[in-house]
């Protein structure tokens, strides 16, 4: 089929397509231009306004601290004056006022504070171990600035805040350490460049040193989030050495009972596994796959989602990596997730399924045995469009790698009917992928000598009308694929000719004069 060229773009991301068993599972397509609104739950992970769990009580209860509204607000000019004064008390007051101003939800005056040149002052306050209140207020103000746009984050980093924050991690005062965790998490979340700056400044040992059986849960939550941001982002990935440093702790955190910790630890694993097979291998080798599969059944959506994402990434790897997930029981969990009430979960599950279906026929067999075909067909019929799209890929992969018997079983489960119905979707790529699946089904039917039967079935299901209509499609590839199917299975091909010397009445029977040596 000439659909190959286009379908190739994604097909080449599946493993086992055609005769090349090594490559082709689909990786999450990244770095794409997006038209949609950025995905909500991913966005809030990047930067976050956390709540400090470890504020000392007296601080939390002090009138200064609780009520932003009640405290008389200082103007920016006053703040500048106070912060730049030599008096510790004024500095503290100025810092606190600045922090409060920056904490307001609507349009905090980040730029004004930066333009006023206060950052270098704040950074210098960070080192004042003997002035914990000032230290804390400065850290908080900087954190707020770092949680702005990339440009804001950049200002904080360029004022040299990173090494000081990292050393603050070791602060004996838990709330100060936690503030540093928070600030660093925001910086790490900015992108791969600052993430690697932090790693080079040895943030990881400093962070991991804070994990102990006594670490309060709240603190651990924020720490896990910061760790997850250190795992995040590609182009480039975090250095291998850093990953190896973090993994044992992440594995440990994945056995914690707290939902937020579990969620962020899972997200971390999902970032680490969202790469080529070598990256996936590092995750699989930790032996964490069974736990991830277990977490796919977690009642909390925010735990289940990243667990599913991680497993989805792993089954996009090699056959062996996929097998690890299958051995851990992923196929027993997927049917339920395919039928989850949230469309985003269905879609993610269908994506994972499409990758398992791209495997060798023994894995396809396991997929059948575990009852994945009924939910797959249900999604093809009734799913949300994004889920249907993944489900269609699953069918095409299944039909290109499955045995004839497996393909027959798929057709009998109603997949053919469902994909024929989908030929009316308004998405040329999906249509092309469906036509490819139908072609694959015909190739299987051909082996059984049942092409005619399949042709009739396709016609009965209204497929011939639809495919014929697609011959009017504006997309050249869709037109070609539809045309080829019609030509091949619903009518017949053509003949071409070459010329030979002729006279008026007859052809001239002669061989060319050049006598060559024959060599076959």
């Amino acid at each position, binding site marked *: 089929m000439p659909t190959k060229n286009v379908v190739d773009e994604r097909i080449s991301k599946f493993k086992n397509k055609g005769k090349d068993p090594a490559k082709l599972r689909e990786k999450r397509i990244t770095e794409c231009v997006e*038209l949609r609104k950025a995905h909500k739950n991913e966005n809030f992970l990047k930067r976050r306004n956390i709540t400090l769990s470890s504020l000392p009580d007296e601080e939390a209860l002090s009138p200064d601290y609780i009520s932003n509204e009640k405290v008389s607000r200082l103007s920016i000019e006053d703040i500048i004056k106070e912060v730049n004064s030599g008096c510790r008390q004024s500095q503290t007051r100025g810092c606190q006022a600045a922090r409060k101003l920056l904490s307001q939800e609507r349009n905090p005056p980040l730029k004004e504070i930066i333009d006023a040149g206060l950052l270098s002052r704040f950074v210098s306050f960070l080192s004042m171990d003997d002035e914990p209140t000032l230290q804390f207020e400065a850290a908080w103000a900087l954190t707020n600035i770092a949680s702005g746009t990339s440009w804001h984050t950049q200002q904080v980093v360029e004022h040299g805040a990173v090494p000081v924050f990292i050393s603050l991690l070791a602060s004996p005062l838990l709330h100060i350490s936690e503030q540093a965790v928070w600030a660093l998490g925001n910086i790490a979340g900015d992108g791969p460049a600052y993430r690697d700056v932090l790693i080079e400044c040895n943030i990881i040992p400093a962070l991991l040193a804070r994990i102990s059986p006594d670490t309060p849960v709240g603190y651990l939550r924020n720490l896990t989030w910061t760790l997850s941001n250190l795992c995040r982002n590609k182009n480039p990935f975090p250095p291998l050495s850093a990953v190896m440093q973090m993994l044992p702790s992440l594995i440990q955190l994945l056995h914690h009972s707290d939902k937020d910790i579990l969620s962020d630890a899972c997200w971390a694993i999902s970032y680490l596994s969202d790469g080529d097979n070598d990256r996936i291998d590092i995750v699989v080798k930790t032996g964490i796959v069974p736990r991830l599969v277990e977490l796919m059944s977690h009642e909390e959506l925010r735990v289940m989602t990243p667990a599913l994402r991680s497993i989805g990434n792993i089954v996009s790897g090699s056959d062996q990596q996929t097998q690890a997930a299958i051995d851990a029981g992923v196929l027993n969990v997927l049917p339920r997730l395919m039928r989850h009430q949230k469309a985003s979960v269905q879609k993610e599950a269908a994506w994972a399924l499409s990758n398992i279906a791209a495997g060798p026929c023994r894995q396809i067999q396991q997929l059948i045995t575990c009852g994945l075909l009924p939910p797959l067909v249900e999604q093809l019929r009734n799913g949300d469009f994004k889920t249907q799209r993944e489900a269609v890929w699953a069918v095409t992969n299944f039909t290109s790698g499955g045995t004839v018997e497996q393909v027959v079983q798929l057709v009998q489960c109603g997949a053919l009917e469902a994909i024929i119905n989908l030929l009316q979707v*308004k998405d*040329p790529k999906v249509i092309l992928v469906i036509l490819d699946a139908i072609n694959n089904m015909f190739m299987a039917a051909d082996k059984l000598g049942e092409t005619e039967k399949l042709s009739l079935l396709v016609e*009965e299901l209204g497929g011939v009308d639809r495919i014929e209509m697609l011959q009017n499609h504006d997309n050249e590839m869709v037109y070609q694929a539809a045309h080829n199917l019609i030509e091949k299975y619903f009518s017949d091909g053509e003949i071409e000719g*070459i010329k*030979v010397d002729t006279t008026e009445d*007859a052809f001239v029977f002669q061989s060319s004069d050049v006598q*060559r040596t*024959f060599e*076959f």
Partner: protein
Amino acid sequence: MELNDANLQTLTEFLRKTLDPDPTVRRPAEKFLESVEGNQNYPLLLLTLLEKSQDNVIRVCAAVTFKNYIKRNWRIVEDEPNKISDTDRSAIKANIVNLMLSSPEQIQKQLSDAISIIGREDFPQKWPDLLTEMVTRFRSGDFHIINGVLRTAHSLFKRYRHEFKSNELWTEIKLVLDTFALPLTELFKATIELCQTHASDVNALKVLFSSLTLISKLFYSLNFQDLPEFFEDNMETWMTNFHGLLTLDNKLLQTDDEEEAGLLELLKSQICDNAALYAQKYDEEFQPYLPRFVTAIWNLLVSTGQEVKYDLLVSNAIQFLASVCERPHYKHLFEDQNTLTSICEKVIVPNMEFRSADEEAFEDNSEEYIRRDLEGSDIDTRRRAACDLVRGLCKFFEGPVTAIFSGYVNSMLVEYAKNPAENWKHKDAAIYLVTSLASKAQTQKHGITQANELVNLNEFFVNHILTDLTSPNINEFPVLKADAIKYVMIFRSQLPKEQLLQAVPLLINHLQAESIVEHTYTAHALERLFTMRGPNNATLITPAEMAPFTEQLLTNLFKSLALPGSAENEYIMKAIMRSFSLLQEAIVPYVPTLIGQLTHKLLLVSKNPSKPHFNHYLFESLCLSVRITCKTNPTTVSSFEEALFPVFTEILQNDVQEFLPYVFQVMSLLLEIHSNSIPSSYMALFPHLLQPVLWERTGNIPPLVRLLQAYLEKGGATIAGSAADKIPGLLGVFQKLIASKANDHQGFYLLNSIIEHMPPESITQYRKQIFILLFQRLQSSKTTKFIKSFLVFVNLYCVKYGAIALQEIFDSIQPKMFGMVLEKIIIPEVQKVSGAVEKKICAVGITKILTECPAMMDTEYTKLWTPLLQALIGLFELPEDDSIPDDEHFIDIEDTPGYQTAFSQLAFAGKKEHDPIGDAVGNPKILLAQSLHKLSTACPGRVPSMLSTSLNAEALQFLQGYLQAATVQLV
């Protein structure tokens, strides 16, 4: 070329000449323009003319010429020179938008097209300010300008609807959204407000509504690939306004035209498309709006009239409901009994009604009517959309929907019964409703294959269909008759055989109906009934069961061809063919009369062949007459020749191209019936069959090859005797065919017949040449098909002339050639040969090479002996290709291989498979065993030693089996 008045003047003159009706004036002018279009400033001269020329004709002509120039030259093809200078390109881009917007509509359209061609190449990178320039015009307040911009934008953006997602495409869309989405939204809102302020100004409204339609189209394009953030954030604005527009009506915009859709319909239709897009792809986000749209669209349907101009809107709207009602989470919108009833009553039933436009088509344009109604080219009709909605609703509500419609069907039938003459359309609607309700799956071959179990098809047949078929006046209520006949036809697989048998004589009566649709449907129904399969794969209706009606059937079929409008009715001719094929010997008594009618018809249509299907079935019917009659009495062949040859001669003389392949096939069929001699009438034609002009038409090749094969089989000796000078021409045909990958197998068919049937001495002088040609082809273009045919031929040659002759001729062409062919072709490829006869020829040929060729035993070829034997055993033991072709009675021409290639193969002119070896060798395995035995006794000890040293164990075991079966032993 300079931009000056002189050049403008010259150009004007030549442009004027290109409009001249006289080609001697026009062509040179066109040539001249083409010759100067490569010059710098040429496009700018055109732009100047289209803007400033005093003559309106020249302005339009310059615009068209400019657009075509852009179309041909703008794209920069890699490795080809840039055909437009960069300064011209910049100048064009700088001016064209302005020019387009300030031009009158005729010119505006051309320039708008040109902009989209340029945009396709240059936008956005090389034309960054295009969008902003366009958007600025939105603020002009002049809707003629705004519509120009919108139209151009539409032609730039509509490709987003069909192109694949790619980073490049999405980057462009993103850029477009960034500059365009907000102004478009503002324009949308402003336009709607203006519609309110100008609600009574019809001219203003027309312009505004065309803007709204264009804006809605742009919305569709921009939202097609994915839901853009901007439109998600502004969904409220867009959807509220779309919804408002759907419910809006303005008397001023209603048109009197019944056919052409008005602005209001076009806009609403596009909004239905937009809603359907969102419902399908962005369900999650669109959910809050969907119920409102369902209600609005449903109300729209209830209040829209039956006129043709609403067809597109109505079918779009119904399709929207059909796609929504299938989705489980919208089930609740429909499940209320009142809702269902009202959809059935007010949406489905009215759109299934037989309209006056249908009635006109039924009477005056029956071909079109049949195509729509019978062949399913009704994709965007109201009836089809209504059927789809019935099916959609049945997914969740089969019971209630069936119940509602049953009530409806009954009441319509009651209405009909009250006053059939007045109310016959009620019954038509009732039948249509039953049909669409009952049919769940359908194919051309079998009709309805799955039916709604809640509908009692038999009862309906007995009570309402049979009554129409038995009514004595076959010309009364032709539409209802056609409905009844169609009912039998499409439900044939669902109705019990007794009812079908009951219908057959009634149908035969209706062949006489005056209405074209009615008797065409009848012929079609009969034809379909005759192709139904009963037990044992035979026909469901047997010739014995047809006996009482045979004469009437044949008479009426031929009579119906005389009815006005049906002289070349393909359905009737197909029914004739199928009747012959079903009835077999029963037609023999009638053939003398029928053959006269058929040849008469043939003579008529050959004057001007215009209905390919009709003609095809006509020839099929001729073949059947010949075959059925000659099967019992071969000597009657001469009477067929007497009847047919005069017509055939005329066809050949007039070179009626469409008919030649058929004539050759019928002649082959006739010639093959002759016992071993060739009548002189055929020999006279022989030289003409070798004319190159015949062989240049691909459709002639297979039937001509077959005809020549028949000549060779019946008259090989005659040709060698009296037409020996034609042998080079015959071989020339072989050479011509062998040069084509598509036709080489046909060349081999011919060659095999020459080897088999020509006296050996007549071709001695050509043999070496034949092989050289084959080797040349093998060397230059070795395909599997060629190799398979080549292997069969080589082995046939060996069987016919002996293994030594084969080896000698090979080695005379080039030393050691024989060994090379064995090693490189025969041994590795022989497994690919398929077909029982072909395999047999190869087996016997190879056996001869193994056992009757001394060179295989005593030269360096000896090392190939065991591998060759091994290959032969492999050939024996490969699984046979045992697929049996379908019984020809059931074949449709659409299924026949080659029909579309203009070959027009006649199913009933079929050729028996020919086995050149025949009974001479019963079992090739035994032959091998016996031949090996003979060889081993001639040189004792050698055969067993060759076997034991290099034949593999499995092959050896098979071989021992053959030896045992032949009860021989090797020594």
